[in-house]
């Protein structure tokens, strides 16, 4: 029987070990606090606020009440971070302690904290890399047009949140950034130190496709940008990441970030798909706060597209975030694993897309890597160029410009968003659509599509398998919710789309071919 007793002792220890959890303790007010923005913010953060006309003394930037922090600290195991934006304190506490704290008159809400995150995928292929792909990953966004105009993200500050940046302090791909002293600040939110050049190489890869240069070739578009590097994730300590992510956002704001790239997502560990509505996940809520302060957060859509989860995770579901899906560079349409939209409150996500397979700089050398983790920084680099072109645009306007610069715009679907952002379209806003390149005639619930001869002729067959040969389509209902979408490879000049006579909900069909979009309305 002594062994049975031992077993129960061990189980009891286990119960108590997992019983203390991290929580946000949200306060009702910021009693007795004062705030000096000129002491707190970096000059660039002040500049952004002034430029955007934001209040320098906004209540959300005031510190959390030290009295409240002390009171809560006395009744919990430990406290780790006080968020100004959320007016909340993250604590380790048992359920009993939480019950006591929730009774304090200055506590308005208790929120359990996320435990597991997923870096949005990376498969490492050391063997060889494709120099063609290295060129194409920026060419797909018309990177050469930015370069011709001298646009490289100069003066734009990009914060990267990731699991580590080994090699950024030594790899030749970042030499131009180091030489220019353009790594402005670093902080490891896991270890609470400034050293970030170790740990998980995911951040190194991500940074390379924002602003790296390899062998004279740009790996991303923002080769002239400034960087803030934050290590926010650590696999073996899964209780801290959500706090770190929130802390890093405020740190990025304080240090003048214009753009944040975050290639992580929270999915099934904490949430159900139905909760991906932009309001449930804490990180989604705080991402929206960042947008309201003029910071554009660019986030990977996620790599759940070919499994049970399928849809985008958090914080990519947040309205204020620019969500980036993945394109297969070998086919020019959605890469199979890229998570799809819409959000469960039927908002359009992802917003745009970029290559989901890229050439990246690893800890050492150059590699090929897969994942929307790398589509997101490609677009973050594009966003930096967009910000340089349109410095007066706030986060939401910049997001809108990037959406409108999508290759497919104004056509939209839940896999590609508005497509790969195009430099020409953000350089010249409201660029005219190409001439009509197909005719549609409706006849007895049947749509006859005929491509104009010079748009698609027999000579075009060598284009089959590329964007140039694809017709993108999306059926929409009366609420502009897409009910079905896809891509058709065009092999003949004429074809027919048949619509069931029983179909009642689809009221329009959007078709996109070679830059031209037409929306056909039904049931008028």
């Amino acid at each position, binding site marked *: 029987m002594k*062994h049975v007793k031992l*077993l129960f002792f061990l*189980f009891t220890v*286990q*119960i108590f070990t*997992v*019983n203390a*959890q991290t929580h946000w303790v949200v306060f009702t007010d910021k009693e007795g606090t004062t705030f000096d923005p000129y002491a707190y913010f970096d000059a660039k953060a002040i500049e952004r606020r002034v430029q955007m006309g934001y209040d320098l003394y906004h209540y959300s930037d005031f510190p959390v009440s030290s009295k409240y922090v002390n009171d809560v600290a006395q009744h919990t195991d430990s406290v780790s971070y006080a968020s100004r934006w959320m007016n909340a304190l993250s604590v380790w506490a048992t*359920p009993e302690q939480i019950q006591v704290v929730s009774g304090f008159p200055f506590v308005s809400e208790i929120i*359990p904290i996320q*435990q*597991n995150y997923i870096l949005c995928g990376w498969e490492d292929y050391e063997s060889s890399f494709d120099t063609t792909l290295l060129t194409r990953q920026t060419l797909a966004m018309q990177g050469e047009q930015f370069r011709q105009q001298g646009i490289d993200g100069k003066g734009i500050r990009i914060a990267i949140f990731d699991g580590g940046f080994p090699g950024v302090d030594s790899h030749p791909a970042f030499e131009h950034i180091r030489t220019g002293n353009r790594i402005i600040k670093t902080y490891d939110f896991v270890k609470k130190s400034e050293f970030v050049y170790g740990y998980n190489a995911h951040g190194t890869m991500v940074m390379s496709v924002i602003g790296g240069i390899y062998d004279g070739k740009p790996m991303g578009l923002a080769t002239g940008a400034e960087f803030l590097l934050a290590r926010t994730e650590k696999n073996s300590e899964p209780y801290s990441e959500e706090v770190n992510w929130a802390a890093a956002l405020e740190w990025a704001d304080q240090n003048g970030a214009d753009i944040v790239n975050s290639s992580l997502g929270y*999915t*099934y*560990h*904490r*949430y*159900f798909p*139905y909760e991906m509505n932009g309001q449930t996940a804490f990180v989604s809520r705080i991402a929206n706060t960042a947008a309201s302060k003029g910071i554009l957060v660019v986030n990977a859509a996620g790599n759940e597209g070919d*499994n*049970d*989860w399928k*849809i985008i995770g958090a914080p990519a579901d947040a309205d204020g975030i620019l969500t980036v899906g993945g394109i297969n560079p070998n*086919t020019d*349409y*959605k890469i199979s694993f890229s998570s*799809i939209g*819409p959000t*469960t409150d*039927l908002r359009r996500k992802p917003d745009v897309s970029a290559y989901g397979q890229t050439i990246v700089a690893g800890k050492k050398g150059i590699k090929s890597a897969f994942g929307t983790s790398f589509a997101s920084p490609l677009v973050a680099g594009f966003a930096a160029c967009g910000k340089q072109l349109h410095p007066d645009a706030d986060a939401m306007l910049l997001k809108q410009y990037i959406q409108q610069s999508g290759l497919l715009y104004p056509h939209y679907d*839940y*896999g590609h968003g508005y497509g790969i952002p195009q430099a020409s379209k953000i350089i010249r806003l409201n660029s005219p659509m190409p001439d009509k390149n197909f005719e549609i005639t409706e006849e007895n619930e049947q749509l006859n599509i005929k491509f104009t001869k010079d748009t698609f002729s027999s000579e075009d067959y060598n284009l089959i398998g590329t964007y140039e040969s*694809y*017709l993108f*389509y999306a*059926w929409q*209902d009366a609420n502009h*919710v897409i*009910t*079905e*979408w*896809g*891509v*058709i*490879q*065009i*092999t*003949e000049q*004429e*074809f*027919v*789309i*048949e*619509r*069931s006579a*029983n*179909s*009642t*909900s*689809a009221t329009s069909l959007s078709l996109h071919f070679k830059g031209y979009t037409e929306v056909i309305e039904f049931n008028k």
Partner: protein
Amino acid sequence: MRTILSISLILLTLSMFGQNVILQETVTNVTEKPKHGPNCRFFNHFYFSFGINPTLQSGETEVFLLSSNRVTLGNRQIFRLNNYIATGFNIELSTSNFKVKQNENNQRLDSMFHEKERYIFKDLSGSWFIRLNFDKRRGKYIGHFMDLGAYGGYNFSRQRFVKDITTENSITKIWYKQPDYLNAFQYGVFVRIGLNRYVIYSGYRLSDLIDTSKGLTQLPAFTFGLEVGFHK
């Protein structure tokens, strides 16, 4: 809304003549918590486990540690009662092996020391358990848990195996099938601690596997093992 969308997707057909549809997605918006799946009302999954049957208590037959084991393939049905408590049952097919040390401490049916001696049971068992979950907030994910339960099973195959080498170096192997001193039924209690699909477990058999009235010591009652669930 979701229903309307789903119906419309069924009704809406898109047919292309002479074209190649290379990507087609119909939108199924999930606006409610599903009934089936991890941390849902019902969840069913298969699992595999491997455990050892060590000699821990005085009076038990001394066995070789790793050669005395229990291998299980099972199916588990879980019913979620609330965020912290679930219940469920398992249906398992298992093989238990006990490789008996040949020494004076083990009482034997005969006076011989054998080259090898094993007891092998194959059983079909069912069990019921209560699950305590420790994660305050989790999604489509089982998370940290502890199961407490009881099981009972039928030993449909019961064998004793002995191998001897004679003085003439000839080998004899004898299988005693369904002997009357090996019991047909067993029951016991168990506890499992898990993190999602990975589980450590311990079982304690309350019943005898051997009829000790025949002059044999009882086989070890404890099992300690690892289990892997076949789910995400």
